[in-house]
């Protein structure tokens, strides 16, 4: 029920994060049946949730609270997890990270039936939130605690509408007095709940509703039973509809929320700050928040960095490449980051080639565009040979002049917003400093493809002045980890089928699910833990950078070929891309990778395609709705991702595809499955795709 306002809005009778945390500690320490399963964290598979989980785990470890972290990849798995959790007797705290805010948690379907000792904390950055979780009252609702970032304060209208609809019984046109008496017990209940409400709240508005009901009830005992006219009901219902169907967007990152908790508890340090920075950078880099929001949070973290770290050495003011000052140096520096993809680990040409911003402005999928890129570099004084050298080996004076020249010359080509403020962290003498966006790329690459798909990774130095000897090696990071015992112990006599080859003769979705899920969830879990370990270990993180680079290369290859072949169809305002062949098809069957391809395409095509208003959209604002589907040959399904990109760089639009997909699915009876928590990603049976796409695009006629 309770949504926790952030600490700056908290007051004596409105508890906030710190109190909720103290309650977790108290119930852990006081309950006699405390065991390792008393506090369980369910974590969604994205970088933000991962960072938040790590931060929370650190805080718990310092407080000696035994906890368990369980990765959950989608709704289906969450349901299965729920079944399992019902059987745990000693569970008293459940924390959901980046999942569950859209679910109706107090209902019986989810956590309504659990024992009353259980408290569910939801720390989720995705919006909209389910209003019954946020506002639901009563004993059942008290157990669901939503950690809010201040957005719920703005939902007062929705609150009224929701309360009106939930607590008022159906308007009855009969005037029987026995109906009065029938209604009485219900009213009493309602009144009790509202009184509890009033007790725990302090805003005048709520009191007035309570009083209003009271007054109306008195009147109503004399008059007829129905309290609200149909118009009012409809108005309220429309208001709620509007809230839920305006699309999905994101609020404060989960790791940011936990950072605020740590600030209130006065236990922040560089580790927590760095993880919070990673969560924020992830949100910005994957276009979940707009540039304005990013700047807002960035300035907070900037101050924190200045507070917790020594100022950067004055000599390095011109040099954007920081060096660690001493072996224990783990400080974080604020520095402007260029929009090139991992340019400190690649050569300059590749970094610029793979950046989606430059891709769109220069049109690099064509030969002409590539020439423009080399022209730009030449104008800045970098010869072809220089740009092909790995960045660490580039000449020092070139590095120093890079930023300066970029500012001077890039605007001629239309590249204006090349840098954005970000952070870098030193790792003592163990490694070069690593920037936040590179770390985010590495971790999300690990999460997506550390195992489960065969990735080829380039060995540094295999290139020489533009010629490539083709020496790649297969990525083995995930398998090298010490979890080899899983594979040794449970090998059936025939050997295990590797993850990428599920059984072929499946008929019907259910059978496929059961068979496919086991290897699929296995590699998902492995990826999760590989990424989790890498958060701490700079060596593993650096090793993951080549993986991220080859992932990008695959995305660019596919994206350029799509644009080249003009594979983008326009169906009634939607741009649709269907991938049925290509060298990397197995790779793009992963929803995370496909999502990135969609974002890259959206960025690349931003200036070239006119904005459209999709047929089903609520608002009249133009945007760039893009649907990308990729064939998963082995499973016989298509993975479909919908992205609503904004027309201007740096802004975001609410993603309306979640609802559009559900709509279309119902109307054409397609067999679909939501594999992840993102409602704009789904898996659909191969034969239903065409019909589905058509119904999706006709969505406007209702």
């Amino acid at each position, binding site marked *: 029920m309770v949504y926790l306002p952030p600490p700056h809005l908290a007051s004596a009778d409105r508890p906030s994060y710190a109190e909720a945390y103290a309650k977790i500690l108290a119930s852990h320490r006081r309950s006699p049946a405390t065991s390792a399963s008393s506090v369980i964290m369910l974590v969604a598979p994205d970088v933000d949730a991962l960072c938040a989980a790590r931060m929370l785990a650190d805080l718990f*470890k*310092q*407080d*000696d609270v035994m906890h368990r972290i369980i990765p959950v990849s989608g709704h289906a798995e969450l349901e299965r997890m729920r079944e399992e959790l019902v059987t745990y007797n000693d569970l008293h705290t459940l924390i959901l990270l980046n999942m569950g805010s859209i679910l109706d948690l107090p209902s019986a379907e989810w956590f309504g039936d659990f024992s009353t000792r259980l408290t569910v904390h939801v720390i989720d950055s995705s919006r909209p939130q389910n209003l019954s979780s946020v506002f639901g009252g009563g004993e059942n609702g008290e157990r669901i605690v939503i950690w809010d970032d201040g957005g719920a304060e703005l939902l007062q209208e929705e609150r009224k509408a929701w309360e009106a609809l939930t607590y008022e019984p159906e308007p009855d046109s009969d005037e029987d007095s026995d109906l009065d008496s029938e209604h009485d017990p219900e009213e009493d209940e309602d009144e009790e709940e509202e009184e509890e409400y009033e007790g725990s709240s302090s805003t005048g508005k709520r009191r007035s509703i309570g009083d209003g009901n009271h007054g109306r009830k008195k009147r109503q005992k004399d008059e007829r039973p129905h309290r609200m006219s149909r118009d009012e009901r409809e108005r309220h219902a429309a208001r709620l509809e509007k809230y839920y169907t305006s699309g999905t967007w994101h609020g404060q990152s989960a790791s940011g929320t936990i950072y605020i908790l740590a600030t209130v508890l006065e*236990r922040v*340090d560089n580790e927590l700050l760095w993880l919070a920075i990673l969560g924020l950078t992830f949100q910005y880099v994957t276009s979940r928040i707009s540039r304005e929001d990013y700047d807002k949070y960035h300035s907070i973290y900037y101050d924190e960095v200045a507070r917790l770290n020594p100022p950067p050495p004055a000599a390095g003011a011109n040099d954007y490449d920081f060096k660690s000052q*001493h*072996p*224990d140096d783990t400080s974080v520096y604020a520095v402007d980051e260029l929009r090139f993809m991992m340019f400190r680990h690649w050569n300059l040409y590749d970094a610029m080639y793979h950046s989606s911003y430059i891709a769109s402005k220069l049109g690099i999928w064509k030969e002409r565009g590539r020439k423009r890129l080399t022209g730009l570099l030449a104008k800045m004084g970098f010869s072809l040979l220089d740009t092909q050298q790995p960045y660490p080996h580039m000449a020092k004076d070139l590095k120093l002049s890079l930023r300066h020249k970029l500012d001077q010359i890039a605007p001629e080509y239309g590249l204006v917003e090349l840098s954005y403020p970000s952070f870098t962290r030193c790792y003592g003498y163990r490694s070069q400093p690593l920037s936040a966006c590179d770390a985010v790329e590495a971790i999300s690459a690990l999460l997506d493809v550390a195992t489960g798909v065969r990735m080829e990774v380039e060995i540094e130095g295999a290139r020489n002045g533009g010629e490539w000897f083709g020496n790649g090696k297969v990525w083995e990071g995930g398998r090298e980890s010490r979890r080899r015992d899983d594979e040794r112990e449970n090998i059936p006599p025939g050997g295990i089928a590797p993850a990428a080859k599920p059984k072929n003769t499946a008929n019907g979705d259910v059978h496929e699910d059961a068979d496919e899920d086991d290897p699929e969830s296995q590699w998902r879990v492995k990826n999760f833990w590989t990424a989790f370990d890498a958060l701490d270990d700079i060596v593993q993180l650096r090793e993951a950078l080549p993986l991220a680079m080859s992932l990008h290369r695959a995305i660019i290859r596919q994206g350029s070929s799509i644009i080249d072949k003009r594979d983008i169809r326009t169906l009634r305002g939607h741009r649709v891309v269907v991938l049925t062949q290509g060298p990397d098809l197995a790779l793009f069957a992963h929803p995370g990778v496909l999502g990135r391809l969609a974002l890259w395409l959206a960025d690349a095509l931003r200036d070239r395609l006119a904005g459209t208003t999709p047929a089903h959209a609520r608002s009249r604002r133009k945007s760039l709705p893009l649907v990308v589907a990729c064939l998963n040959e082995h499973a016989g399904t298509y993975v479909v991702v919908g992205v609503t990109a904004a027309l201007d760089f740096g802004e975001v639009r609410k993603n309306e595809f979640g609802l559009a997909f559900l709509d279309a699915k119902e109307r054409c009876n397609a067999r679909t499955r939501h594999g992840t928590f993102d409602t704009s990603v789904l898996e659909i049976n191969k034969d239903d795709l065409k019909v589905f796409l058509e119904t999706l695009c006709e969505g406007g006629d209702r």
Partner: protein
Amino acid sequence: MALPAPLRASVTPTELELIASEQLVEIVPLVAMERTAFISGAYGPLRPPSKCKVPIWMATNLKLKKKCRIVPPDWLNVEFLEERLVQETTGESFSEMPFRFAEVAKVLIDTAPDDFPNPDKIRSLLKDIREARQAKSREGLSKLDHSELSLPNLCSMEINEIRPFFIRAMGVLIDIIKDAQPQQDIA
């Protein structure tokens, strides 16, 4: 234990670290605690911000949970170590160092580098001292005879290093002397 053969004859360095962690060190606690009884004794009460002496194992545990700050022992600083290093490199015999200096220094500097004024300088000084002493103990071993080996001011880790060697060596020497003596008696 599954250690290689040479290490099985003596105590391992990690065990020495464990033994050394019983020593008391001074901390500035950040949380309060009553006088509590542990297996090895009763420690506390912890009343921030006044200092208190606790065993090193407890100090590192609190430090990792960010509940205290460690006060460096009076021998673990740059001036003292520099002085000792000079003595070590100029004198013939071993200079006086706290008996378990290597273990204590390792544990404290690894857990709490931020509580020391100059941790990398301290680390390099410690390394220099250790190398100088190592050279001396190698020389001293050449003076080994069957009855005694006198190396004053040797510290626990160093003793542990040479122990397997000189025990066996002395055993062999004693055998040789015993064999030599009866011949003398007869003659």
